[in-house]
């Protein structure tokens, strides 16, 4: 048709398997970005027709109709209608239908077909429909809808070639047809959809509903909650125990490189910058990659298996009590990995006040950037032993406690906010519960790789830059003999000024020094201490070899360490979170409010922890 690369949009209901189909079609050739102006994720990728002509594919957020209920659904409508700024209208549509849920999914399909764009229907997850006892007549469905229907099983890459051939044909042979009027009201649309579904269904046998049996346990008012808490507990134990060998290996590798640089190059400014600044600082953060990936792995598995919506169902009652809805559970659980995607995920919450509250408490979820800080302190101060004679590790238990503190804090804050600054109507909670599915290795691998890449890019940019600036501040001016370089330097003096403010809550000079650069990102607190430590230890072979954890264990009291942990449960030290909040709330008012209230809470929590610990003789 045209010389330009045709762009094809995948569109359909939530849970139709669009993303799996998108992954199957594009493989790793995809790019996740944001639509300009809105923070809805734009997933685009490339594929090619059988003869090699390239096409570009875009995966649109799932929705039920062209009348949006939330921000991400609005993007789907705007892209399809060609109204999304910076996005050309797609040349063709692939409507993705869940073969086992035709009555419902055909409603949106009919609405889309009425637009008159070249269209092919992917009858997806046909294997699951067959498993559920459904036999469908694809040709009949195609005749009823007036467009090609291709059966696909995205997971097994079945039907992909046929799908691409059909879309090629649809674009080639497309006659600009007048948009057909879709049935005007919901009831007639549903009637039409049901009639087509019935016509296309050859056979429907009653099935063994194992999903129902699983749900009877998983959604049980008491057993369900116990399972949920147990799952979260296992998740946090795993983060600690599984990651250790990988983290040790990474740490060893960084040490080898450091030693090699020191042994190979003459002692000069640049070597100091690389060894003490870059390698010590960035390295201290990169070793947490395994833990972050394990956390993401769990969250992705919960999401892909369909369990996440069950968790939202169980939590809705509790969240409703503080004025939120179960829908907020998913963004909040994502915030355990990182508040930035978590805050972005709030766009699926229809109620504005509900959404704002969820954004404001998202930073209280223990994100992966806190892991470096928590692990360092826990590793240094909490003995690696089991509780009593149980297989439960004490370190994992403390970590679990920190996560719980964040959650309880968040619920209390939401409770107060919903009765003060974000007062509004009680919100609803309407959601479809997807079927259980085995998570696909391929989809999980792609998503994990994307997270790892984002983390490493952060380590290579924000964290590297902050660390280098900090190294410069700590290196100059040079201290006269006999004085501590870290204390004498420009950075050390700034820290001494801050120390006055944080002294009452038990913080020492090490911490004051780490807090300033940690404004950029929490994990920089660890790199900052590593860099200061490396400068302090310069020339002293033994001190150099001593791990950061061992060093602070010898210098801090337990009360100080606990206060430091309590501080990080609340402190809003992350530029990215503040920036995303500004973008999501369209202004500085709410991010400023968020930073203010979180610092107050952090100060209070650290103070209370410190004074209590001192009272118990841990000072």
């Amino acid at each position, binding site marked *: 048709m045209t010389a330009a690369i045709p762009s094809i949009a995948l569109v359909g209901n939530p849970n139709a398997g669009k993303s799996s189909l998108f992954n199957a079609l594009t493989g790793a050739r995809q790019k996740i970005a944001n639509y300009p102006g809105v923070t809805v994720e734009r997933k685009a990728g490339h594929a090619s027709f059988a003869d090699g002509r390239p096409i570009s594919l875009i995966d649109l957020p799932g929705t039920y109709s062209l009348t949006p209920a939330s921000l991400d659904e609005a993007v789907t409508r705007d892209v399809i209608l060609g109204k999304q700024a910076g996005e050309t209208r797609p040349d063709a549509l692939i409507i993705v239908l869940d073969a086992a849920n035709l009555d419902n999914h055909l409603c949106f399909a009919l609405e889309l077909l009425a637009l008159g764009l070249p269209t092919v229907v992917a009858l997806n997850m046909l294997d699951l429909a067959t498993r559920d006892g459904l036999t469908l007549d694809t040709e009949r469905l195609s005749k009823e809808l007036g467009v090609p229907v291709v059966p696909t099983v995205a997971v097994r890459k079945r039907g992909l070639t046929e799908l691409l051939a059909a879309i090629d044909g649809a674009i080639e042979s497309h006659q600009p047809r007048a948009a057909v009027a879709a049935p005007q009201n919901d009831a007639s649309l549903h009637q039409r959809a049901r009639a087509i579904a019935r016509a296309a269904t050859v056979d429907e046998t009653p099935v063994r509903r194992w999903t129902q049996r699983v749900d009877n346990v998983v959604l049980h008012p008491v057993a369900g909650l116990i399972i949920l808490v147990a799952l979260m507990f296992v998740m946090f134990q795993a983060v600690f125990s599984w990651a250790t060998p990988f983290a040790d290996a990474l740490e060893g590798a960084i040490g080898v490189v450091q030693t090699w640089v020191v042994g190979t190059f003459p002692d000069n400014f640049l070597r100091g910058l690389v060894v003490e600044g870059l390698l010590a600082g960035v390295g201290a953060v990169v070793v947490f990659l395994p833990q972050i990936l394990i956390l993401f792995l769990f969250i992705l598995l919960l999401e892909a298996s369909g369990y996440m919506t069950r968790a939202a169902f169980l939590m809705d009652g509790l969240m409703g009590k503080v004025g939120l809805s179960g829908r907020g559970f998913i963004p909040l659980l994502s915030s355990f990995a990182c508040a930035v995607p978590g805050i972005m995920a709030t766009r699926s919450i229809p109620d504005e006040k509900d959404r704002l509250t969820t954004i404001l408490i998202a930073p209280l979820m223990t994100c992966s950037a806190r892991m470096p800080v928590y692990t360092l302190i826990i590793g240094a101060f909490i003995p690696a032993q089991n509780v009593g004679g149980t297989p439960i590790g004490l370190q994992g238990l403390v970590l679990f406690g920190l996560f719980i503190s964040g959650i309880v804090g968040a619920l209390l804050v939401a409770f107060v906010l919903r009765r003060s600054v974000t007062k509004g109507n009680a919100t609803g909670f*309407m959601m479809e519960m997807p079927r259980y599915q085995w998570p696909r290795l391929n989809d999980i691998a792609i998503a994990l790789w994307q997270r790892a890449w984002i983390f490493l890019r952060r380590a290579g940019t924000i964290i590297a830059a902050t660390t280098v600036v900090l190294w410069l501040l700590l290196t100059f001016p040079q201290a006269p003999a006999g004085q501590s370089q870290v204390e004498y330097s420009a950075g050390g003096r700034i820290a001494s000024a801050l120390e006055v403010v944080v002294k009452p809550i038990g913080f020492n000079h090490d911490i004051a020094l780490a807090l300033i650069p940690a404004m950029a990102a929490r994990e920089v607190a660890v790199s900052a201490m590593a860099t200061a430590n490396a400068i302090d230890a310069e020339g002293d072979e033994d001190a150099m070899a001593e791990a950061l954890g061992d060093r602070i264990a010898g210098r801090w009291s337990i009360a100080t360490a606990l206060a430091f942990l309590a501080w990080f449960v609340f402190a809003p030290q992350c530029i990215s979170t503040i920036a995303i909040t500004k973008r999501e709330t369209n202004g500085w008012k709410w991010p400023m409010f968020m930073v203010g209230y979180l610092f107050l809470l952090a100060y209070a929590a650290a103070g209370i922890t410190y004074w209590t610990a001192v009272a118990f003789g841990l000072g």
Partner: protein
Amino acid sequence: MTALLENSLDRAPLGVAVRIARIDWTAMSDDEGRRLREFGLMEGCEITPLHRGSIFSRDPLAVTIGRMKVIIRSNQAAAIEIETISA
């Protein structure tokens, strides 16, 4: 607020299929009403309430409609009047 319905979905026993007799659309916002219809919850259709809440609250309610399972809150369920299906 409208008067509570005699036979609302909110009070229906779990696990028993029922038919939607009437929905009081005025008891909910336009958006909520539309989403209910998009789920297929309309007058005349058959649904089965299956799970209700947790120890925290009676909210929410999960019902099956066709081959779908959807979650709604009890304030919406209270606006849905149901009738038994004659065998």
